[in-house]
């Protein structure tokens, strides 16, 4: 197996790409994808440490993270559907009033 640092560096790179994407992009769905990428970077870190430290808890926690990510993506996309029905756009520049 590769050394632990390689997995951590990859996870850090993925996380920073996701963060930059959330800050830069305008399309709401692309922002969701970047959030998923950040969550997956954390999953990679947990699995790498689980293998390195010989403890199964990291891999079990990844299950819960994936579940929460799925639930969040479902609710987020449903929210975007409702928003699109009102505003005909999912550009975050248009999400600028509280009243729909």
């Amino acid at each position, binding site marked *: 197996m590769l050394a632990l640092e390689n997995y951590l560096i990859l996870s850090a790179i993925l996380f920073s790409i996701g963060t*930059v994407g959330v*800050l830069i992009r305008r399309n709401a769905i692309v922002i969701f994808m970047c959030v998923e990428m950040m969550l997956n970077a954390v999953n990679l870190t947990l699995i790498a440490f689980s293998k390195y430290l*010989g*403890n*199964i808890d990291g891999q*079990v926690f990844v299950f819960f993270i994936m*579940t929460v990510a799925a639930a969040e993506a*479902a*609710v987020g996309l449903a929210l975007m559907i409702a928003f699109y029905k009102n505003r005909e756009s999912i550009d975050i520049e248009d999400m600028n009033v509280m009243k729909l």
Partner: protein
Amino acid sequence: MTKNWLRAAAALDAAAALSLAYMLFEAQWVRRVDRRLEAPGVAAELDGLTIVQLSDFHAGFVPSFNRRAMCKAVDMAVAAGPDLVVFTGDFATGPHGAEELHAQLRRLAGAAPLGVFVLFLTCWFLIKGSLTGVTGSMDAAQVVKYGHVELIGKALFTDFLYPFEITSLLLLAAIVGAVILAKKKI
């Protein structure tokens, strides 16, 4: 497109400003915290010993006001009437202002009858040291024998049973929420 870059640059600038403010202002805010500690194995004559612990002077760090904070910390330490002074790391980061540092140390040494102890090169110890190498029970032999699926299942349905059941409730809430949000007519 430019507005996005401006926004990202503004966010990064805000983060940089916050860290700078932390370094220049919060780090200079010297506080005194009194704690009463129990030491079960120590001889009875040492009861009531006053130990002053100082750390992170970073003396000689050029673009900062550490001199003022350092003097304030030494004032507080001397006012506490210590028997023993201990520096637990990050004592100095440069040769700048060494005479002042020595003067403050002499003040401390004068105030503490049992002496001043300084931990040097704590960063070096952290870098040169290595992990203990103590690992848990799941090693490669176990994985070959049982397989990942059984190991994860065993943990998920014994140690993590409660979060597992709560996650099912979470998924139910998410499904109901998503359906209600996306319906054509509620």
